[in-house]
């Protein structure tokens, strides 16, 4: 029974690390995409003037 708890801890950490990493890079991608779209719009606007 105690070993089963340790097994769940191990898998919890393993799967948890994967989830946290995927969540973190997904968020980073969304933030960067928005920031670059804004920057591109600013530069293009500047060139039109």
């Amino acid at each position, binding site marked *: 029974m105690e070993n089963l708890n340790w097994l769940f801890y191990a898998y919890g*950490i393993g799967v948890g690390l994967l989830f946290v990493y995927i969540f973190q890079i997904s968020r980073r991608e969304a933030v960067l995409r928005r920031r670059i779209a804004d920057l591109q719009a600013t530069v293009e606007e500047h060139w039109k003037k």
Partner: protein
Amino acid sequence: MSSRIATDSPAVPLWLGGPAALAMLVHLYLVFMWVSTESTMGIIQRIFYFHVPAATVAFVACFVGGVASILYLIKRDNKWDDLSVAANETVVVFEAINIVMGSIWGRRVWGIWWTWDAKLTSAFLLFFLYVAYLLIRRATPVEVRATVCAVICILGMLDVPLIYMSNRIFRTQHPSPVIGGGEGSGIAGDMKFTLFFGMFAMLLLWGCIVRLRRRVAQLERAGEDLTRRTNEMVDQGV
């Protein structure tokens, strides 16, 4: 504009993300519900089905990152540097999973969290090298960043055969290999199936993660390029 990159299409297409998620779920089902329990260690041995695939994926990531770095040094094309950083960051994640899960397993079976034998030390060295790679990447000037990182990454790749061979050459606390370990090695059919399915599932997931991380690298590069051009425009008074 040269810095505009295709961000309309998803970084991870459904044909890859769907099967990867499904395969991971099936893998967890196999580990917890299907595979037979090992007679000596008992249920804690099931850590094996995540611990070994994580190491396999880390090795594949080292190899992909190393080859991408070599291609970058030859062709000087940024797309290879983007692939290299994407693969190398995943080495840190999967190697961390491998080490932490192995350590928990070791605590239950050997009674210790860690020992500095050849296998564990070379695995820790790999993890440490790639953490150093990520830190150096942040600290190095943009103009030489890709070249410096490519050299470190190629050195990191050389550690992989050392880890693989360590428990074949030296006597280690870490058990002898059960796959490809020569005479007397081997595991039951259902265990082997679960292990290989785990490797397949984790490689699919790794494919998704690398694609997503490569997109982040492309966006970071585009952001740096746009910022530089905006600064040039300001300097020129345009």
